[in-house]
């Protein structure tokens, strides 16, 4: 890596930026290593290390984790259908429609799912529906952009004109030529988003949108750390299970 003027300029600006960041925040990070904080860490771990496994509480946790799986699954499926429609509509020569779709997907994408949840909470109230809708909006933005890029990369002018001379519409061309080609890639994108969504759904409850996160937030506010440790164990095991399932499905469908 040799250095030219541009590289030196960027390195200098990045270092100036870093120093301004440190000056701006005005916090002392070494407060973490103070005596009292270490003590509170130790107390926390002591209470954390004996989880609550009474039957009543376990059934509550299992119910909540089922709700979390529900939220992530439904939002992934609905948003993949939306993204599929966005992909088909994006094949027009209408400039305004294309730029509108780009603006829409960018808008949906750039607000994080948790902030979508906070905003939608005012419209639809507490409950798992809000979480599902928030995840659906965010995920359809991301998946829409990915699918549109997939279609743009696959389009070949040669074959398209071939189809048109044989009196085939774009939809026929799409379903018989492009769709079988990009199907494995689409499946892998959807599974990847599902993995992300289950992580997001388990934390969406913090703002009151159902699932494991809500249970976690209540128990944490009541300082019941033994129950918190049970909930965290369930969260992690659920995420790992979904990861295993999605990697199995991916290997089945994409051969990777």
């Amino acid at each position, binding site marked *: 890596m040799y250095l030219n003027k541009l590289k030196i300029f960027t390195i200098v600006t990045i270092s100036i930026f870093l120093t301004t960041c440190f000056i701006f925040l005005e916090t002392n990070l070494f407060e973490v290593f103070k005596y009292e904080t270490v003590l509170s860490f130790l107390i926390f771990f002591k209470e954390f290390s004996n989880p609550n496994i009474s039957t009543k509480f376990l059934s509550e946790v299992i119910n909540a984790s089922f709700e979390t799986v529900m939220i992530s699954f439904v939002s992934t499926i609905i948003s993949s259908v939306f993204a599929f429609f966005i992909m088909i509509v994006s094949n027009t020569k209408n400039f305004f429609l294309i730029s509108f779709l780009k603006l829409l997907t960018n808008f949906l994408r750039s607000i994080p799912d948790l902030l979508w949840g*906070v905003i939608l909470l005012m419209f639809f109230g507490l409950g798992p529906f809000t979480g599902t809708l928030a995840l659906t909006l965010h995920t359809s933005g991301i998946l829409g952009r990915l699918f549109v890029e997939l279609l743009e990369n696959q389009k070949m002018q040669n074959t398209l004109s071939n189809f048109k001379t044989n009196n085939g519409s774009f939809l026929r061309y799409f379903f018989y030529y492009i769709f079988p080609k990009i199907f494995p890639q689409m499946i892998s994108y959807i599974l990847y988003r599902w993995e992300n969504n289950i992580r997001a759904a388990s934390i969406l409850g913090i703002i009151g949108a159902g699932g494991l996160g809500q249970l976690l937030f209540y128990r944490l506010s009541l300082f019941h750390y033994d129950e918190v440790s049970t909930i965290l164990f369930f969260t992690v095991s659920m995420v790992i299970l979904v990861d295993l399932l999605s990697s199995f499905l991916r290997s089945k469908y994409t051969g990777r």
Partner: protein
Amino acid sequence: MKNYFLIKNTLYLVILFLTIIFSGLIIEKSNLLNLNFNNVNEVFFLFFPLEYSKEFLYTTIENTFITISIATISVLISTFISLPMSVICSNNLSSSTIFKNKNKIKDLSRYFLRTNFLFLRSLPEIIVALLLVKILGLGVNAAILSIVITFTGFMTKVFIEIIDSSNTVSSENLIRSGAGKFKVFLYATLPLCSKEIISYIVFRWECAIRTSLILGIVGAGGLGQQMELAIKMMDLNEVSTIVFLLIFLVYICDQISNFIRKVFI
């Protein structure tokens, strides 16, 4: 082959069935059928017009800078932790794999270190922040520490993969002639894979900005906290300004990271 198609079609049917049942359950649980849609109309018009008084804009911009600096500092710290750790944990740079002397203790200890990083990245950063806010109290420190904890796990894993998939000719020669791990990394491996490492760090910086926006909801400072407070006070025109600023911020960060990638790669 016939059997294969049968399995595939039943899988699709099961997915469809599950979607319908799950969505029905969600709608029933959230009591959506009793929803009053007049409420939706009323709330929607509270978002406009945008708030743009001078005082409000000043505090928002200050909070934006706090968010950016939280992200930058935490990515810097986690890079400084994860680069040496990935050098220690990688298989490519270890003498025991190259000389093939089957040093089981060294292999096991390396494996053990790697699994530690799996624990770091298994919990979402917002839950870590929730726990740390309880321990350290409200403030920027909790946000920085939670991002550092999770991102160290992710970055170490990816750096190990980058080092293990790089070309081993020069590094192996250096190790055979007796150089230490970190020297080999600095002189042989880093020049080969510096581009990938830089692009991954920049990507993580973008992610860190998004997470530090979210962490405000837990009470860890920045733009997210201001938005949460504005929602709790029902100042919805402030919320809409903050949302537009947020979109602008994410766009600007995309452009900056693209520029850095273009310069170095």
